[in-house]
């Protein structure tokens, strides 16, 4: 990571490598859907991608699309070392979707100083280095 990685005005997302474990996730994002695995046996959602349910151990699951809305469960704004920052005004956030499943992401189109716990957010998709679309979240203004 060097400062040279920082390209003004263009948000940067590293990777992601797509493989047989997470392909379902990026197949969905390509269609504009935020989808997670949901256990066929106990109906538990899970994230990150896995081959069995963490709750009951069952290996049969469905890939289910969420509504893409949720709230900020926690967040932090990286400041230093500046050489490791790949963008300006990054806000890391753990989003809890309304379905109850969590996802680590970035908040975009928001003044970092107004971010807070329980802030409502909605998903957007942006291209990453490998061409895959990755989910980010923006303040949910209740439209659309």
């Amino acid at each position, binding site marked *: 990571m060097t400062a040279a990685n920082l390209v003004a005005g263009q948000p940067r997302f590293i990777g992601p490598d797509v493989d047989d474990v997470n392909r379902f996730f990026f197949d969905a994002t390509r269609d504009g859907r935020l989808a997670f695995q949901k256990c066929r046996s106990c109906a538990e959602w899970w994230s990150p991608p896995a081959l069995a349910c963490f709750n009951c151990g069952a290996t049969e699951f469905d890939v289910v699309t969420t509504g893409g809305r949720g709230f900020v469960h*926690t967040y932090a704004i990286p400041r*230093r070392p500046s050489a490791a920052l790949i963008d300006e005004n990054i806000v890391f956030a753990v989003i809890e979707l309304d379905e109850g499943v969590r996802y680590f992401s970035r908040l975009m189109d928001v003044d970092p100083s107004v971010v807070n716990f329980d802030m409502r957010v909605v998903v957007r998709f942006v291209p990453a280095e490998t061409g895959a679309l990755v989910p980010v979240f923006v303040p949910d203004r209740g439209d659309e």
Partner: protein
Amino acid sequence: MEDSNAEVVIAGIGITEISRDSGVSSAVLATRAITSALADAGLSTRDVDGLVTYEADPTSPFLLAQLLGLPELHWYSVTLAGGGGACATFQDAALAVSTGLASHVVVYRAENMRSGRRFGQGISDSDAGAAQAVLRQVFTYGSVTPAWWEAPTFHRYLHDYGKTNADLAHVVVSARRWAATNPAAHFHGRPLTMDEHQTSKWIAEPVLRIHDCCLESDGGAAFVVTSAERARDLKAKAVRIRHAARGMGHRSTLMQNYYARDIAGLPDLDVVAKKLYERTGLRASDFDAAILYDSFSPLVPMSLEALGFCNRGEGIDFIADGHTSPGGLLPVNPNGGQMGEGYLHGFNGIVEAVRQLRGTSVNQVHDVNRMIVTSGPALPTSAMVLQGY
């Protein structure tokens, strides 16, 4: 170990200078620490038949065997989980000794983590090695340092218990009081005020300032682990390894505990504490002092809570009341810890524990006989109970 055939002890300790630029390679640092630990025990390299380190150490047991001209080795291993593996190395060594697989196992850790690779400057996908698959989602979004990985969890912890970064200043001030009277500490003679803490730069706003993060240091430490019986004929005062445990919590992820039911805890340390207490019959009130892995200030109160020294959410108040400071009920990290003395991935704290139990620390605590020692607690982790004779 507690339920093994032979009682196992730490019979020798060695530590190099902790500096910002050692001027030598990590391998030379390791040999210096090992030679010093053997001299402390009154042993020679000819006596060593086991070598153990943990993940991310740049010098393999095989290279050290070559550099030191060691005889046959009957045991070697590298425990996992980065700093979480610190006490697990003693578990490996103790298992080998107690079962008779090896006689004298040297446990070591040495690296130039200031003049060489600095974790705090950003870790690339390739540096992450086998951990890459677990970390790739956070890498994608640009989260590339341990401080940034852990900050969201720390923020939820502070939020849930009505605290802010200003409250964390108590943790750092306590550490720096200890460091101020330790001549080997980076911050020797330099205590910290609450104001100095609060005006230091943000690493992750509004959670961690630079003073909430451990130092980055060059240095190495090593220990000789053998049976109590053999140690009776050796030079140094032995310290007993009552028990060592390792464990991984349900849904644990490396330094980004975002998916556990309770994001504001340390589920890996919960697992290890339960096992350690089950196997020894001990509880928090049985310890006279503690070495708690403090790569970031919130880990100290969170560890106090996970180990049962206070209730959930009360760790910062426990520290603010002075209990962990010089003269307190439960001295924590009397060497100044990794925020005050230096960062050797947890191993300088273990040296301090042995010195305390021998009665030879520069910041000696009175009447200390039993200590609990932890390793990096925000990932699969390990801990142990050490006891003096």
